[in-house]
């Protein structure tokens, strides 16, 4: 049995070795690498949006309403992807929209992940009636179709981006709680946990320092999936008028505004959805790669 004093001096090189092993498995999956690059590009676009965007995302140019993309007939070189019904530059709105989508994904995942980990740790660690009550509550949340529950929660809290994020985080959280609980229950009977307990580790230390680091792999994979799920759900709520409100350049909200013009101006509908698809696809590609790299037990699929 190894003791902590033996492990700690090796930690630095161990971490580096782990990372390079991880990268080795991750980079085998070409799709995952492509997804990663697209995602990095999106993050850069979001960070430097004010520098990249040719126009102000909510500036209305009165003489350029529903202008088609620059390469189309009657297109204008000033507006590469055309303008919407009130003369706003679609490209600039999409660039600023990247900020919202990535922000939504980050906030939702952080909230759902930390809440889920806490709840799952408590349920798995204490067991008994605490576990039963917690898991039944999670079952109740999972019994509702997630989009429906998010919609109703937003109806209670009032429409808006913040409330939409809270609702989505609440709906996604049980997945993390379940995963954490299952992982904790698998780790609890292991010898290293017993050793730590015998050595006098308190409950908190056992939960967060001893057990949690060994449960992280499935949680990271689930976090990636939830990241893309959150972006999709937030866009869906925006599309239904319950998420970000106009004139916010959020992609789902842009689609909601564009709906009336679908047969008259294809570009106002096509580009925001394409942006959502590319973002979600990139993240899901990364998620597949992460799963292969972190969890060799699961077969590649």
């Amino acid at each position, binding site marked *: 049995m190894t003791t902590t004093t033996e492990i700690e001096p090796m930690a630095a090189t161990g971490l580096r070795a782990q990372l390079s092993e991880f990268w080795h498995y991750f980079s085998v999956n070409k799709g995952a690498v492509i997804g990663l690059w697209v995602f990095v590009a999106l993050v850069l676009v979001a960070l430097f949006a004010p520098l990249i965007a040719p126009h102000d995302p909510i500036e209305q140019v009165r003489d350029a309403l529903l202008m088609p993309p620059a390469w189309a007939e009657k297109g204008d070189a000033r507006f590469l992807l055309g303008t919407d019904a009130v003369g706003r530059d679609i490209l600039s709105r999409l660039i600023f929209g990247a900020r919202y989508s990535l922000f939504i994904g980050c906030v939702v995942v952080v909230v759902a992940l930390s809440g889920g980990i806490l709840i799952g740790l408590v349920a798995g660690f204490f067991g008994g009636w605490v576990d039963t009550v917690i898991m039944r509550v999670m079952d109740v949340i999972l019994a509702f179709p997630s989009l429906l529950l998010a919609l109703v929660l937003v109806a209670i809290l009032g429409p808006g981006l913040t409330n939409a994020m809270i609702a989505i985080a609440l709906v996604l959280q049980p997945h993390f709680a379940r995963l954490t609980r299952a992982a904790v229950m698998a780790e609890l009977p292991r010898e290293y946990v017993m050793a730590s307990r015998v050595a006098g580790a308190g409950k908190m230390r056992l939960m967060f320092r001893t057990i949690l680091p060994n449960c992280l792999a499935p949680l990271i994979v689930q976090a990636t999936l939830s990241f893309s799920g959150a972006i999709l759900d937030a866009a*869906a709520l925006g599309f239904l008028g319950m998420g970000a409100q106009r004139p916010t350049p959020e992609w*789902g909200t842009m689609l909601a505004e564009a709906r009336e013009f679908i047969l008259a101006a294809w570009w106002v509908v096509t580009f925001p959805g394409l942006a959502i698809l590319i973002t979600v696809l990139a993240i899901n590609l990364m998620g597949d790669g992460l799963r292969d790299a972190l969890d060799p037990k699961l077969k590649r699929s």
Partner: protein
Amino acid sequence: MFRFLLGKLAYLVPTFIGITIVAFGFVRVLPGDPVLLMAGERGLTPERHAELSAQLGFDRPIWQQYLDFLGRLFQGDFGTSLVTKKPVLTEFFTLFPATLELSLCAILLATAVGLPLGIFAAIRRGSWFDQVSMSSALVGYSMPIFWWGLLLIIFFSGVLGWTPVSGRISLMFYFPTVTGFMTIDSLLSGQDGAFTSALSHLILPTIVLATIPMAVIARQARSAMLEVLGEDYVRTARAKGLSAWRVVGLHALRNALIPVITTIGLQVGTLMGGAILTETIFSWPGIGKAMVDSISRRDYPSVQGGLLIIAALVMTVNLLVDLLYGLINPRIRHR
């Protein structure tokens, strides 16, 4: 098997109670006066307010209100819609066939395409067919379906003019409702062109709603098949000299299908979520669209009832899937 069934049912009771608490609590945590929200009247006099409050039971202790609520549920009273003034349950039954017709068609399409796709991808692992179909599956899985629906409308209704934009059937046709399934009712009516019209209205929403389940089924079928193909008994069957198709068709497929059937069954939740978006885009008069409308019209009794019915429905189907799983896979039953 009986014990298995009882165990599953016992497991569901607390969840069901939880669902009723959520639906009951929903109205009470809404900002604003619950009496005004549930009665849907404005400019009430204090007397009328007290009368309504007593009538709706809001003047009683909260636990008694909850028990009353449960009691009414068991009598089939899910409240009355503020907009149509009809019982929520009646409204549900008039709207549900539309959603059921759409969902059934969607899951059939998703299975008919996704299953063979996944199985062939597994058999020809690493081939261009595998790569193309799994890439498409990932795109389908990542698809914002509300946008996908709009794109299909632009192309098939706008550019080609093949399909109508919204609704279930052309307004030219009118016939009595028999099954509630527009395709079947139009056939029964015997009117020329009615069936074609119903079908052309159904195609695009079906494709949109089927997209995500199709991708999930294809991915699941592929990994289940790969797993089975690596098993010893498949190798034995191959070693005995059975033809490749016989090995796949007879030995591997049967076992690979077990997890896939569960996956198909568990898509009900996805379908209900997808129905909200699909029905909104295509103005399909089902419960998904009705829920969105009820929320935006602040018809809270309808939202409350709908929430309850949909969750109970999803739970029941999941239970049936569990039972089916126990039926086809004895290993689960005898645990």
